[in-house]
């Protein structure tokens, strides 16, 4: 077992102690009979979290204790009662945990036995159940060297939101600097004093930004601790011999990203061992060493961190690679998709796919990407590209159709001019170093309308997930580090953007998500399907009323009144719109219409309905603010079944009339 990282122990201790404080408080509240109804759930969560973290750090004694607390609590939860006699042993367990967490615990075999028998009592008083975890205690009596107990480190725990706020503020300060420079304009070059101060400010700001980012980042090794053990276990279970090599473990990553990548990385390791590395005999026969190598490698490239999981196993079969090439997709896409299909695909592929799909989804959520490379017989490598910090992004700003866009620098391979364009099977493409790259208008990729770009327009070669596209724009503005602002919950259904950034001149640049730019057919599929508001009182059998009214307010009121009375309601904005709807929907049972409307008024609508033999018996109610005898006569002459004034908004009169006419 690897020695737990000292830095992680400190964090674990802080968190565990906080959880233990909470456990003790809650237990005392239970004893005093003033605990909340969900107290047991909170206790369970606390014990569960401590167990999980201790397991990851290899603190077996802590894990065993937390596990048996969890067992007792779960049994209590299932039995639906929390006898106060449980409080005392649980409190002792919490104390024992605290000592173990501090690195000075005594063996707790007796306590584990007691907790096991409490649990058995709860479950119905049968034989004391030996918890499987409790059984492991013999072989861990001396719990290894007391983990770094004496090593005091000066740390403070800070709420993550405060760090986020700090980074936000740094971003705002950077932004403010740009605005200031923009305002100063040429004066910067005329006044040496100003230029010097600005230069100094730049350096200070850079340092400040670095420090703020560093507070949010943690080294990769903070999550790789359990990996060697996990690899050993997976390899043993799969009958493989595997060496895990970790390089670049000190590479730093945003802690939010890091925390969510731990599980996906285990997936990738599992894939590499289970589906990549061959059994030892097979390797030997192929002239390879019996033990395979799985490498986990991390390195920073500008604002991006690349994490690679590479194996020297059998690789993806040649026919699969050929099929992928034929289909014009990427290996990453094909494998991730294979994870979903149940029939026809080789299980080998789908096995790899399930994990890969999870990894891909996770990486793309952060504006990152996944690429898979494989050589038959030689091995496979999965490359994750992730942003270094979530809030700041290095982008290239470009202009297209009067709008400024930012494209993450990490996804741009080069900028080219499109004058040497050729056409491949009807689609424009560029020949770049013997490779053809499809060309597309950035405006079209983003889903915007714009005049066609000029003949020698610049194009960005954007790569994501192994696909490329040369996106044509009007001008390249330049490279800039921007603060990523979310588009917010109200624009959540619009996909394809990493967010927006405010530029020095006050304009807003939309930050494009490279993985959706390279995904064909561009923008068409980018909007999530619209979720229609659920019909209120949508009784299938209820009569359907078509409300024709140009005022939105009146339309909504009438809809509301009729729906509350159990009718289904369709609306139209004028007579023409109403006729369209009637043509599309033969299920309309009655029409309620206003008179004065643009395009086609209510009288003309009524006449049109009556003129159609199929609709001659469709009831029509005219509701209007005009109440003269003349109007009334015109309406009835046109063929309306009823005529009512809406001045009073008498909903009873409306409902009675409609009810009479549809015969309910």
């Amino acid at each position, binding site marked *: 077992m690897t020695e737990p990282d000292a830095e992680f122990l400190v964090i674990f201790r802080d968190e565990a102690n906080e959880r233990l404080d909470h456990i003790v408080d809650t237990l005392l509240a239970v004893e005093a009979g003033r605990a909340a109804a969900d107290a047991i759930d909170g206790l369970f969560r606390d014990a569960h979290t401590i167990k999980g973290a201790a397991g990851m750090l290899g603190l077996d004694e802590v894990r065993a204790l937390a596990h048996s607390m969890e067992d007792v609590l779960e049994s209590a939860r299932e039995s639906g009662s929390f006898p106060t006699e449980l409080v005392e042993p649980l409190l002792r367990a919490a104390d024992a945990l605290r000592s173990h967490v501090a690195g000075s615990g005594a063996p707790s075999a007796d306590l584990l036995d007691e907790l096991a028998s409490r649990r058995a009592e709860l479950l119905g008083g049968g034989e004391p159940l030996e918890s499987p975890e409790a059984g492991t205690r013999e072989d861990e009596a001396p719990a290894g060297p007391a983990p770094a107990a004496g090593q005091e480190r000066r740390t403070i725990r800070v709420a993550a939101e405060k760090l986020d706020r700090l980074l936000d503020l740094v971003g705002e300060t950077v932004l403010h600097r740009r605005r200031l420079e923009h305002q100063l304009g040429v004066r910067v070059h005329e006044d040496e004093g100003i230029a010097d101060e600005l230069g100094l400010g730049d350096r200070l700001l850079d340092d400040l930004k670095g420090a703020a980012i560093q507070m949010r980042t943690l080294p990769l090794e903070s999550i790789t601790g359990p990996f060697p053990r996990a690899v050993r276990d997976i390899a043993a279970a799969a009958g493989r011999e595997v060496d895990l090599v970790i390089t670049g473990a000190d590479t730093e990553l945003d802690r939010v990203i890091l925390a969510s990548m731990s599980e996906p990385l285990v997936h990738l390791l599992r894939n590499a061992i289970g589906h990549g590395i061959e059994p030892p005999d097979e390797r030997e026969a192929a002239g390879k060493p019996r033990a395979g190598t799985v490498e986990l490698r991390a390195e920073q490239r500008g604002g991006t961190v690349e994490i690679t999981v590479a194996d020297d196993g059998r690789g993806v079969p040649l026919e699969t690679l050929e099929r992928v090439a034929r289909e014009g997709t990427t290996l990453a896409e094909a494998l991730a998709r294979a994870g979903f299909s149940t029939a026809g695909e080789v299980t080998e592929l789908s096995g790899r796919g399930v994990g890969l799909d999870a990894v891909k989804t996770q990486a793309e959520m952060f504006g990152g990407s996944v690429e898979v490379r494989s050589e038959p017989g030689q091995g496979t490598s999965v490359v994750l590209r992730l942003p270094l910090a979530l809030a700041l992004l290095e982008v290239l700003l470009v202009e297209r159709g009067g709008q400024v866009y930012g494209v993450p620098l990490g996804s741009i391979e080069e900028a080219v001019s499109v004058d040497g364009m050729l056409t491949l099977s009807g689609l424009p493409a560029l020949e770049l170093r013997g490779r053809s790259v499809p060309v597309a208008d950035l405006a079209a990729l983003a889903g915007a309308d714009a005049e066609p770009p000029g003949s020698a327009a610049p194009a960005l070669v954007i790569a994501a997930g192994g696909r490329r596209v040369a996106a044509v724009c009007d001008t390249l503005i330049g490279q800039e580090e921007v603060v990523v602002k979310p588009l917010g919950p109200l624009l959540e259904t619009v996909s394809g953007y990493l967010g927006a950034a405010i530029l020095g001149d006050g304009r807003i640049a939309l930050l494009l998500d490279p993985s959706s730019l390279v995904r064909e057919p561009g923008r068409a599929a980018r909007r999530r399907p619209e979720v229609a508001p659920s019909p209120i009182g949508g009784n299938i059998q209820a009569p359907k009323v078509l409300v024709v009214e140009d005022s939105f307010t009146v339309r909504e*009121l009438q809809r509301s009144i009729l729906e509350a009375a159990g009718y289904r309601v369709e609306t139209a904005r004028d007579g023409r719109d109403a006729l369209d709807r009637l043509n599309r929907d033969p299920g309309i049972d009655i029409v309620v219409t206003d008179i004065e409307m643009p395009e086609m008024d209510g009288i003309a609508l009524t006449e049109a309905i009556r003129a159609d033999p199929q609709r001659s018996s469709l009831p029509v109610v005219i509701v209007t603010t005009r109440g003269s005898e003349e109007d009334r006569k015109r309406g009835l002459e046109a063929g309306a079944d009823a005529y009512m004034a809406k001045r009073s908004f008498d909903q009873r009169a409306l409902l009675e009339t409609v009810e009479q006419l549809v015969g309910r």
Partner: protein
Amino acid sequence: MYVRLRVGAEAYALPVENVLEVAQLGQIAPVPGSGPYVLGVYNLRGEVLPVFDLAKLFGIDRDVEPDRLLVTEHAGRKAGFAVSEVSDVGELPDAVQEAESDFLSGASLFEGELIGIIDVPRVFDALERGGAG
């Protein structure tokens, strides 16, 4: 208290507690791929504010482009509503009719005119679902 406004020729009102400020509709960056009722995003003193065209959202015809921006807020969500005219701030008589609408809480009669009362939380919920009714 309500802020009274016009969308096209129709009269509406918004509870003042949902209105943060009223501004001239400035430069707005369109967001390609969003719904037709999304005008785009606006730089509100360093904040990225989504701006919605109420006429398009409600399906109201209008002759002139909107030129006023109402900055609205509810439970931490913020949005700009582009409207034709912001008339004034004042009291309204009690609603003549409540409504179960995706956008309105009801309507009130004021100076002989029917005024739709915009329900900001309902509008936000509808926008968050990704569409107009």
